């Protein structure tokens, strides 16, 4: 049972972030890096599948610079068998489609039974990379998986829909799934496991190691960042006037509108 888990080191911003490079980037001093919250769940799901199968391999894979190293070590500490980091300076600021292209190129030679990704990352919140990887790999896929049961190469999964609804469906492996938080209880790494993680295989690859180059990655990109800015301070609430009945009627309208979307 070989599961590849594509992970991401995400950046959390200080409240006073400074914009640099003509407002196209944030001053790196204002960033704190951690493993994406969703990836703890997808990694745990992979580890559980490997443990249930009795043998197999879990490979944690990421596109990221040195700041992503700690997140990969965290995956190894939690129990991944092997980790891979792909980076090239040309990938700075890469959008989800560019990242997906690179991830797919790195995953293909692994020929996994299952590829797991998080539904989204907490910093970019695209919710797109995983399924784009599936498209490049030609893998069947399901997004936003809340529950996963595997038997004889067929996965029965629950897709978490809006409004508390769930869809149950089946998909045959090999496949790619994006995993939702709360699917399991991620294990944590003891101090010993953290120390031992440093002895596990962690390979660092460049674009040419995965058969790509800056031009091809650039061509795969879907968007360009023109600029970043701070959000406008709101003018404050739109105040609802009238009797409690009037107020309640307006609130009901707003709620129904927002919730039905």
């Amino acid at each position, binding site marked *: 049972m070989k599961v590849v888990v594509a992970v991401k080191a995400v950046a959390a911003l200080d409240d006073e972030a400074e914009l640099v490079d003509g407002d196209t980037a944030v001053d790196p001093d204002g960033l704190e890096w951690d493993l994406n919250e969703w990836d703890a769940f997808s990694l745990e799901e992979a580890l559980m599948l490997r443990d249930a199968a009795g043998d197999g391999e879990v490979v944690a894979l990421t596109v990221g610079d040195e700041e992503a190293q700690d997140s990969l070590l965290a995956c190894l500490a939690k129990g991944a068998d092997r980790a891979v980091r792909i980076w090239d300076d040309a990938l700075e600021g890469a959008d989800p489609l560019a990242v997906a292209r690179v991830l797919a190129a790195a995953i293909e030679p692994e020929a996994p039974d299952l590829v797991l990704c998080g539904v989204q990352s907490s910093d970019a919140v695209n919710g797109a990379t995983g399924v784009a990887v599936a498209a490049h790999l030609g893998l069947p896929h399901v997004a936003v998986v809340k529950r996963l049961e595997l038997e004889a190469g067929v996965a029965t999964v629950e897709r978490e829909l809006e409004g508390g609804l769930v869809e149950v469906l089946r998909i045959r492996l090999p496949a790619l799934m994006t995993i939702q938080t709360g699917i399991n209880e991620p294990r*944590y790494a*003891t101090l010993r496991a953290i120390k031992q993680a440093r002895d596990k295989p962690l390979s660092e690859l460049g674009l040419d190691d995965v058969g790509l180059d800056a031009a091809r990655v650039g061509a795969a990109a879907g968007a360009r960042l023109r600029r970043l800015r701070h959000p406008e301070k709101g003018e404050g609430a739109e105040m609802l006037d009238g009797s409690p009945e009037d107020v309640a009627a307006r609130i009901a309208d707003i709620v129904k509108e927002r919730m039905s979307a």
Partner: protein
Amino acid sequence: MARDPKYDVLFEPIQIGPKTLKNRFYQVPHCIGAGSEKPGMQAYHRAMKAEGGWGACCTEYCSIHPESDDTSRVSARIWDDGDIRNLAAMTERLHHYGALAGIELWYGGPHAPCMESRATPRGPSQIPSDFEINIHPRYADKDDILELQQMYVDAAIRARDAGFDIVYVYGAHAYLPFQFLSPYYNKRTDEYGGSFENRARFWRETLIKVREAVGDDCAIASRFAVDHLFGPISIEVGEDGARFVEYCDDLVDLWDFTVGDIAEWGQNAGPSRFFEENHEKPYTGQLKAGNHTNKPVVGVGRVTNPDTMVAIITSGQFDIIGAARPSISDPFLPRKIEEGRPEDIRECIGCNQCISRWEIGGPPMVCTQNATAGEEYRRGWHPEKFSRAANADKGVLVVGAGPAGMECAMILGKREMSAVHLVEADKEIGGCVNWISQLGHSDGKENLFRGTARGLGEWARIRNYRQIQLDKLRNVEVHLGSRLSADDIFEYGAEIVVIATGCRFATDGLNPATHEPIPGADTTLDWQLTPDQVVSGEKPIGDRVLVLENEGYFMGASIAQKLAGQGKQVHLVTQAGDIVGYMEYTLEAPMLHRDLHRLGVDIHTHTMLEKVEPGACHAYNIWDTGHKDVFEVDSVVLCTQRISDDQLYRDLKADKARLEQEGIDAVYVIGDASAPRMIVDSVFDGHRLAREIDSPNPAMPLPFIRERRLWGESTNDDFEGQLRSAPDVLPLSQLGPAEVPA
């Protein structure tokens, strides 16, 4: 980070007489057990608040003469040059941080029993104290009155010499000036008694004389209990209270308003289980609102929330935010607001442990939230500075995230240990705080004389604060829902292991009175419970309940209060003379007694159980064991004593070979797991271990400075030259140029 503009009003200076108060944060006089005879503790504790941004810090009540002696309770004293010298240490250190120094000149009258001085206190009428035991004052004739007033004047001059900026004439908590003003104490028929002006004469004359002596150099303040809470027989805010403020407004540069007296001090220093934030507003807020004063007003109410502080000022309730307990819990509260990080404020929980230690008569003061309170000088602990641990490269595993474990992990994190793992078996962080904070409500509807049974919910701040701080520490990981076995701990990979696994209640009636289990007591049976089982609701409880309480603090009575609030018929039984011994010191007892009476709890003191049977508890009177009683009950709650849950610690310690093999350098045990104790002491225990984790033998606390007389000549160095566990608080000579906060 920058200060949120909505808090700007708190940082506006205000003039009080000849002095400028740089902001609206004012530490009102409060006790700490230091007085003039522990000048190091006094200076360093007060100045920590100044360093943290408080614009003014005051002494505790400061005796003006040996006739005002509250021993065994510790007051400050300004009797002679030696006291000037000692208190000058405080004023100097406060001035270094740009804060004003205040002194509360106090004469207690019969409330101060003079056990050390053996002098005779004087009073307006010869009525024994309603607070102390069998202390009568000598009736003060007019010569006495002149002498008493001269005591204030002489003390004020000494105070000015000592460097104080604000000099109080203290007439709150039913001390001397108030005794003259109130017809409850003053039955005189001369010009110092009877009419309002006569009763106010002593106080007014004293203010005139003190102002004449030092008013050009110092701000003259007066602390006034605007309402005695006794109704028409004493001072009421709507009558003589407001009248007095108007009458003496011209003589005062600053009013400091409170309510109540010393006999039920808990109505002023209100514990959170009965009084909410800003609870004195209906009384002390009336003076500015009713335009009775043109002078700046400071008042209290255990206010910890910066938004409440802003509202108090902008609504015109007070001009200055007064605080005692919130300043103990977080001396850096003003700075944290200034620096735009109000979420780091360590909020007072209103447990009144600080007050309890002073009431008992012993320094140091303590604080559940701030383990450094009282330790600034004698141990060199700074609440916001943490020297890097010398053994920071060691990994630490802390097992148990209750008060001790959370505090230990937090301080280890702040001391830059490379990796700290805090592992908790429960799904929630907080340990015993989580269930204890659910106690204290009966039904909360009845007004129990100014308060309601609000419960211990604010005690959950012990958890909230640490949860936020632990989350911020990158070198600390918290893992919940993970119960570690001894094997798990051996294999964890930590060089240092701290066991903080708490305690449990005895299940068999083992108790501090008989030192034996009670026959028939067995909380594994479904009709017998331990207190935590009552709160968890895991067992049904019948209509008639007996609660056996041998701890002497809040647990048994709180369980009785909870069950009676549910409509049950409750017998509360204790071998002691009081069901809530320690709560007399935390000032919670009077209100709890009121609630238990209202709820119809049957209280049986000096009573112990000799046997427990289904449906019946057999009891006897401890003075006459032949005097027996049978309580017919459906359920029994045993709150007899606690026992450490230290099995993990014992197992680890026992296998020295394996400890060595696994690279574990040391195993420590803290908090209730070491010995069950009050939460304040668990937090302290965790804190101390973390502060001293790099000392040669961390299990043994390092010596602390004892401020005592050394035979022959001595200097400060004799004391400070000694080893203290942390160099985070320095003598004035070693402090750099003043780092004056806003």
